[in-house]
Structures are given as C-alpha cells and as structure tokens.
C-alpha cells in the first residue's frame, strides 16, 4: 500500500497496532498499521501465535520480520486467539500490501472490551505519528 492510510473505523495502539472490534464487542481482528509496515520494509516472515493463546493488552504476542528488522507485535486488547491468518505464511508481503484487510494477523475473543477506552482513534493516532 503506497499511501499512508489510517481507516477511521479502527482503533489504534501507540505501538502501531490496530483493532477492529465487532459490533457486539465479543471479538476483534488485530493487525499492524501502515506506519509499522512501512518502517519495516517488505515483511518476509510472520509466525502467528497458537490458537487459544491468551493475549494481554500492551504485551507482545508475536513478531514480524523483514530483511532489515524484526518488530514486536503488541496486543491492543486482551483476549483469546480464536483465528489466525494462515495465508500469511505463504505470502507475508500481504501485510505490506493490505495491512488492514487481507493482512490481518489474528482474531481474538475479547476478555475485557472496556479496554477499548485506552486506545486511540484514527485522528489521535495520526497526531501521535506527526508529533
């Protein structure tokens, strides 16, 4: 994805991770932001956590690796991993091409949906990047 983009319907974590929360707050899809993938360069490897892994908000749960760097992926919200994006093992570059769509990393069943209050909206996150 060539142009910086931060969809307004997502919530953002200062460590450059995003969350898309289902309407009923039961589940969320997580990934890394445009900024993160741009800083890394072309992603060459991503190993998802196992199904059932418990994620804790603000704690790293996986790593994303490019030729020049490796970066922690931080959980914006706490929950249990219920789905992982296996397509990324064949095509990790999808994370660069479509970080918010096909490049999603994991889906979690949320354990504390109220944590969303601590996350940033798109404009606050963009402000953080600019500052």
């Amino acid at each position, binding site marked *: 994805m060539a142009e910086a983009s931060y969809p307004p319907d997502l919530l953002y974590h200062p460590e450059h991770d995003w969350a898309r929360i289902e309407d009923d707050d039961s589940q969320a899809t997580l990934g890394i932001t445009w900024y993160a993938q741009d800083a890394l360069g072309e992603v060459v*490897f991503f190993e998802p956590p196992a199904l059932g892994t418990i994620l804790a908000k603000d704690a790293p749960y996986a790593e994303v*690796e490019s030729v020049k760097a490796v970066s922690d992926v931080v959980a914006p919200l706490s929950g249990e991993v219920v789905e992982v994006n296996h397509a990324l093992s064949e095509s*990790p570059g999808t994370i660069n091409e479509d970080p918010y769509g096909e490049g999603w990393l994991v889906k979690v069943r949320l354990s504390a949906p109220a944590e969303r209050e601590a996350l940033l909206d798109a404009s606050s996150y963009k402000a953080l990047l600019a500052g």
Partner: protein
Amino acid sequence: MSPLEQTPLQRERARTIFQKGAPGRRAFVCPELDVPAVDASELLPERFRRRQPPRLPEVSEPEIVRHYVGISKRNFDLDSGFYPLGSCTMKHNPRLHERVAALPGNARLHPLQDAERAQGALELMWNLQGALAEIAGLPHVSLQPSAGSHGELAGVLLTRAYHEDRGGGGRVPNKVLTPDTAHGTNPATVTMAGYEVVKLATDADGGVDLEDLRAKADTDVACLMLTNPNTLGLFDPNIVEIAEIVHGVGATLYYDGANLNAVMGVSRPGDMGFDIVHFNLHKSFTQPHGGGGPGSGPIAVSDRVAPFLPVPLVAQREDGGYELDYGRGRAGSKSIGRLRGFHGNYGCFVRAYAYIRSLGGDGLTDVSEAAVLNANYLLARLRQQGVAEYLPLAYGQLCMHEFVLSGGPMRQRLQIKTLDLAKRLLDFGFHPPTVYFPLLVEEALMVEPTETETRETLDAFAEAIAAILKEAAADPEIARGAPYTTPVRRLDEVAAAKRPIIREALA
C-alpha cells in the same frame, strides 16, 4: 543486460563444488590398512553405523583447486583495494605474520602439550598479555575470548560476578546501560548475560548525554558499556565525568575496543577510568579478517575485577618459566570459569605479537596518529570536493580515526540513498564504507580509512564520491541500478529471507 555487455565474471554461472565432479573421482588417497583386519561388526555394532555416507563431492585435486581459485576471483579483498569500513579497521595484513604463524612450533603445537615443551608459546602469550596491558592501561589480561563479542560477553559476566561477590547474596543490579549509538553486539551480549538493556541518549555534540546518564545511573545499574572514540568517531570529552558517575553508583565501566586504533599511545582506556577493556586482534592488531573470521578478543581488567577472570591464565613461575594457571578454576576461586575450550586463538596471538614487536611503542603511537590524520584528511578532501552539502558530517568538526556522514540531504535533493551510493562505489573499484550504522544518523555512512592507506588512495576515493554525486544530479537512475560491473548485480535479499535456501539440494 545483453550477453555482449556482460563481464566475463558475470557470464560465469555460479556452480557449487557439489555440482562438480563425477562418480569415482577422488583427491584423497587413504593410507593403507596396516593393522590386522577385524570383522566390521566386532569393531562397531551395525546399529551404530551410518546407513548412507554423507553426499560429499567426488572431485579430483585439479578440480578442487580450479573451483576455489575460480570463486576467489569473485571476491573483493583488502590486498586488492581500499576498504574504508567504519569500525572494522581494515588495515594492511603484513605477510610476515602468515610466515611466523605457519612455523611448525606454532601451527603444529597441540594445546595440551606439557608446559615444559611449550615454553615458547607460553612466553609469547605472556609477552602479548603484558603489551596489551600497557596499551590498555589495565594490568590483568585474559587472552581467552574468541572474538570481540566474546570478549564483551566475558566483560558482562565479569561484571555480574563482581556484583554478586559484593552483594553477598543480596540484591544485585540488573541493568546495563549502553548508548543508542552502540554496536549491535552490545545489547545482544547483555541479554545473554541475563541483564536488561537501557539505552542512553546522545547529546547534540555526539557524546553521551550526561543528563540522561545522571537520570539513569542508579544502584540498579551493573555496568555502562561504551566505546571511545564512539561509533560517530568522536572522543567523548566528558569521559572522566562519565566514569565518576558510573563508579559513583558502584557500577563497572566497560570499553569496547573496536575503536582502539584511534588512541594507542595517545590515551589509555584504563586512564580514562574503564574497568574492563576488550581488544579486537582482528582490527587494530592485523589478524586478517578472513572473510568474517577468525578473530580474537582478549580482555584487560582493573584490580577489582581481576579475581573473576576466566581460567586458565598464563602465569610466570618462580624459576622464570611459564605455565597455564588452572588453579583459579578450583574450589575457592572466584573465576567465572571457562568461556571456550583450551586457551584462546593462539594463531591470532602470534600475528598480533609479531605486529607489536614490529612497531614497538612509538610505532603503535604513530599508527593512531596516522589513522586520525588520514580520517581527518579524507573528511577535509570530501569537503573540498563539494560533497559536504549532500553528505554532511553528522556531528562535530573534526574526527578521530573515523567519521560518520549523513546521506539525508543527498536522498532529499539527489533522490539517491546511501545504499545506492555504496552500490555505485563498487563499480569504481572501492569497497564502500559501513552503511546505515549508527542507527542514530539518517542514511549513515561510516568511513574509516586506517593508517596504511596512501594520500593518493584517499584522494581517489574522495574524487569517486564526488563523481557519483555529480552523476546522480544528472541522472539518479544510474546509482539506483548499480552495480553494473561486479560478478553479480544487486541481489534479492527479500527472496533470500522469505524462502531461505541455505544448502545445495542434492538428488
């Protein structure tokens, strides 16, 4: 590129030794079986035997020679050209060193030979220890670590032992400070030794930010790891105060010897206040780099750290002879123990010792003075060539033995990155400087010419940089597509990382 445009080396396809040869060819002729033949299963039970032999090549000696000589021609090397890699100290490797290292008394000496029959080797090690102690300004030396990073690990483990000994079973500090300009090995080493890394900011002049140091130096800090001059090529003017702050909280001060080439005979780390110094014999002391190794990373330490040194140490006996002292490894000793087998990379000691004997004290001082002169000259020549507006010096005015330029302005105005500049330099017959390090500097280019380069070479290099910038101003695509004349052109590193192929597949 069309076939007609390729260089001969580019036209050659890379084939490994595994793709050469034919069944039945051989080089090795096995000595005859001169002992009574014994039934195979009596020698070794069938179930312990290998089922299929390893699929090594089947090649003759002429094929082996032609193959490896052939691939050697696809390598640039220091004997062939200028290699201004910052922090690597690519100085000339005197060939005498290979001759003395190959003497049978050195090369064919078994490490477990009895001390009485290895006195020459032990005396050489003892003398080398003494010379390194004098250069470092710290009296106690271990030659054991195998490389710079190994010496660093030793330093951090020594620090741990020191604190545990003082702490008497109570709480010990758990953090190590390192500047954000530090070499990558430092943080990795620290983690392996069980410490947490805390980064220190760099101030506007390129030195350690004293405010940040004061804020972070507390009794939780075990050690501060520094190199001086630092990776920006700058001598920290506040080094005395830094040492005071660090010692004030009871921590050790560790010196990464990667940049020792700037200060031999000029300033000694021990006098700057460091407790532990590691040397890279493959940098300042001419052990050839060998394409990545071997190296050797001896350490010198202060009195307070000495009890913890690894074993064995070289010791002098009462009768004036020498021995390896293992006594420290016995019960009651405070030594951290061993870091490797035997006693270190003796082959590297021979070369370093020959170098030190060749130069003497005055010679080593000349080395540092010439290294600093050459770096400042090259920096000034680049300025003269009009390079500074695109590649400004990142910090300061003068430098020590190396300097760091920032390619930020070049990238903005000429649309080429430091990477492109480096690749285009390959076409000009130079090895590029270190790129993208330290991370603190945008589009960094770290240049260390060393003292063994002539003025003519430095001039030629400055002219090449200027020429590339001029070329880029006219057409940035040229540098972006470089190199053109090397045995292979730009390689796909992403593909290599995505789907690693790290061995030849065999039928």
